[in-house]
């Protein structure tokens, strides 16, 4: 009975939409796309730097490699980007992964210990990192997909547990890492570009292809949007969930390798600390909704960049790093508000002469 109402109301709306949607202005189409607002924020920041911060865009060539503030922003953002790629898929299924920071600590502790105490070679270290990520991802994923534990609880357990395991592995002391392969991942250059930037772009490209050239992306969005209906349509919803948590852990492992390669040491109580929050923020600012469904990997990368650029700009402008989170929070709120369909619709209406008729 209650079905009759919305149906009656929807009819005229559809016709109205048809009229407008067949030829939306190019402007409105851009305004409607998900990565637009974080990109706009980024542009605004860079514009500010262009006028008020000479030297921001300087790029120098040292030892045949590129250096400069822009590149350091990207380098700092890389860690969050890796994690955000995995986090995007997890959030798209309607979940969240709080354990990524601890995964980084476990992987870092393991790799450093194996390198220092057992003198394992580079490829063996990468294998160990992948193995650890797989175990943790499977643990998270099975708790969530098969035991029905809430994602936030399951990964919270792993967040606490993982940090403890990392401290136990190293005995709580920082270790330095001198393995050439790991150092190359963090500090090396490839075709003049920092290897870590090349790696994150390659990772992003691979993840995008895997999602869009197979049905994985569709299934992930479908499970996040309506799990019951997806299951009834024949999708292995549990398998999909398991997969995204394993992938998220692997992303965190790569982030850990790149980071310890860059700084050359592992502090298990600090490595990856609170990084899950930055990653979640990057994903949300990038345009993927926390309740699941449609996702955009590109948006998440832009989100990670936006947050790091903002931090850098504030610090370069002389703001004490303790106070920096305040304006950061304001910007994040603004971007999120801009993404809400309601506000976005009104904005799009202002700019493109296009009125969204549905809410």
């Amino acid at each position, binding site marked *: 009975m209650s*079905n009759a109402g919305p149906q009656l109301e929807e009819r005229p709306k559809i016709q109205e939409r048809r009229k407008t949607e067949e030829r939306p202005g190019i402007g409105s189409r851009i305004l409607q796309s998900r990565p637009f607002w974080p990109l706009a924020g980024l542009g605004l920041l860079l514009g500010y730097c262009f006028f008020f911060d000479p030297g921001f865009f300087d790029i120098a060539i040292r030892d045949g490699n590129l250096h400069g503030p822009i590149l350091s922003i990207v380098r700092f953002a890389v860690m969050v980007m890796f994690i955000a790629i995995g986090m995007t898929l997890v959030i798209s299924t309607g979940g969240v992964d709080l354990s990524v920071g601890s995964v980084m600590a476990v992987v870092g502790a393991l790799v450093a210990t194996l390198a220092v105490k057992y003198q394992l070679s580079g490829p063996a270290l990468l294998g160990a990192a992948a193995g650890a990520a797989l175990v943790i991802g499977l643990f998270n994923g099975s708790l969530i997909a098969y035991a029905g534990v809430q994602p936030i609880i399951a990964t919270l357990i792993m967040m606490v547990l993982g940090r403890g395991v990392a401290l136990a592995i190293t005995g709580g002391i920082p270790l330095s890492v001198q393995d050439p392969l790991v150092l190359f991942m963090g500090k090396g250059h490839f075709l003049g570009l920092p290897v870590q930037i090349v790696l994150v772009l390659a990772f992003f490209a691979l993840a995008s292809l895997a999602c869009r050239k*197979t049905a994985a992306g569709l299934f992930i969005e479908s499970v996040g949007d309506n799990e019951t*209906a997806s299951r009834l*349509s024949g999708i292995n919803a549990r398998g999909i969930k398991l997969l995204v948590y394993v992938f998220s852990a692997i992303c965190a492992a790569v982030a850990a390798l790149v980071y310890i390669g860059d700084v050359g040491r592992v502090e298990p109580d600090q490595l990856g600390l609170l990084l899950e929050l930055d990653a979640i923020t990057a994903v949300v600012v990038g345009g993927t909704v926390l309740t699941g469904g449609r996702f955009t990997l590109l948006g998440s990368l832009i989100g990670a960049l936006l947050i790091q650029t903002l931090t850098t700009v504030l610090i370069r402008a002389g703001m004490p790093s303790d106070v920096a989170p305040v304006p950061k929070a304001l910007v994040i709120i603004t971007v999120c508000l801009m993404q809400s369909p309601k506000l976005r619709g009104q904005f799009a209406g202002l700019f493109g002469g296009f009125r969204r008729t549905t809410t």
Partner: protein
Amino acid sequence: MSEVLLQMRGVSKGFRGVQALQKVDFTLRAGEIHALMGENGAGKSTLIKVLTGVHPRDSGEIFLLGKKISPQSPREAEETGISTVYQEINLIPELSVAENIMIGRQPRRLGMIDWKALNSRARGALKRLDLDIDPSRPVSSYSLAIQQMVSIARALDVNAKMLILDEPTSSLDEKEVAELFKLMRNLRDKGLGLVFVTHFLDQVYAVTDRITVLRNGELVGEYPTAELPKLDLVARMLGRDPVAAEHTPERIAAAAGTSAAKPLLKVRQLGRKGAIEPLDFEIARGEVVGLAGLLGSGRTETARLIAGADRRTSGSIEIDGHPAALSSPAAAINLGIAFLSEDRKKEGIIPTLSVRENLILAMQAKRGVLRQLPARKQEELAAHYIKALRIKTPSAETPIQNLSGGNQQKVLLARWLCLQPKLIILDEPTRGIDVGAKAEIEKLVESLRQEGMAVLFISSELEEVVRTSQRVVVLRDHRKVGELGGPELSEHQIMKMIASHE
């Protein structure tokens, strides 16, 4: 005639343009048990919610003992003497029986809870119901029936004049039901008025004095239970004239000519504990078999077992002569079984995905995650079905949530049809969609049948079931009570079966 306790006159209530109650009258007398009957969406629960102050009414008047009342909240209703016991037992299991009875109105002394008074008042409340249990023990240590009675004790503690029991028996076994009925009769004899909402027909005849039937938000009538044969009750609930229904209008479906054919689906002793008692039936290729029965009779439960959505606990299913495990929806789909579920919103659409994505979802799931349907093929399929089923949508890329109910339903139908299943299960495919789309779906079912598909058709509308099916399996209270086909198949016969005693 005994004293009139409660009178509702011309009560109307609408929700966002849907008229849930239309000028409904309802009268309850002191010392009677009054059944409130009707199918899903008839307005039973709305009527109760208006009466207990959950929803404000749009118009109409309510009199309790001749005094006009207008309760604004369940609490206010309770204070005026209207108490309610809901379907789910909402007691706090860890607290004692006495605490549960007195919760929210604990007697106090010097600002502290007066435990002595609390226990003695609780004991008094239990005694009035002839319930011999220890009020200091936790509620969870007693059976569901006792817990239900504790809720009643709680409801009656405030000088209740009438008691509403909303589906109180749905989680009780036979013996417990008998105990509850004893208690209800006991209360009636003490002069209370009881409103009993249930969908178990036998229980209505076992315990009530009078029946009020609602349908589509309107009053059908009020009848003394003894003067309303069960068949007439079913007919009134379904909005059919028991006499006229004897002559079934034109049937779309051809007479069963396939009885000799080897069955595609063969179900033996199929059952699931607590959902459906073991039952047998068969469907042949090119045959539409209807599942008829009242709400809660086990139709959807049966469908879900065949669709792999729930696991069976007994029996076997054969497809084309081969035993089928059907351990998941994916397994059923691989065997050529499609299931259009009843709840479009919860179990059907993926709201933010496009019409195209919703349409190809099951086919893609069947192909597996690695073999993505080429974009061209996806667009072709979407374009084909949008045209073939006349789906009204601005484009294939519109999110499905922007479509009307009927058009969403057609997209979901297309999701299954593009798999070219051997058997399609349609659970209430026409619910909540407009008349035009309804007729189109009925016609579609017939053409699928002619193409040789087997169809299991579930509908609450008897007329529709009879019109589209060759045979009808009739369910009542979670078990199969019969099967009708050929010349026997008519609305009248189905209603007779639903109403019959064992």
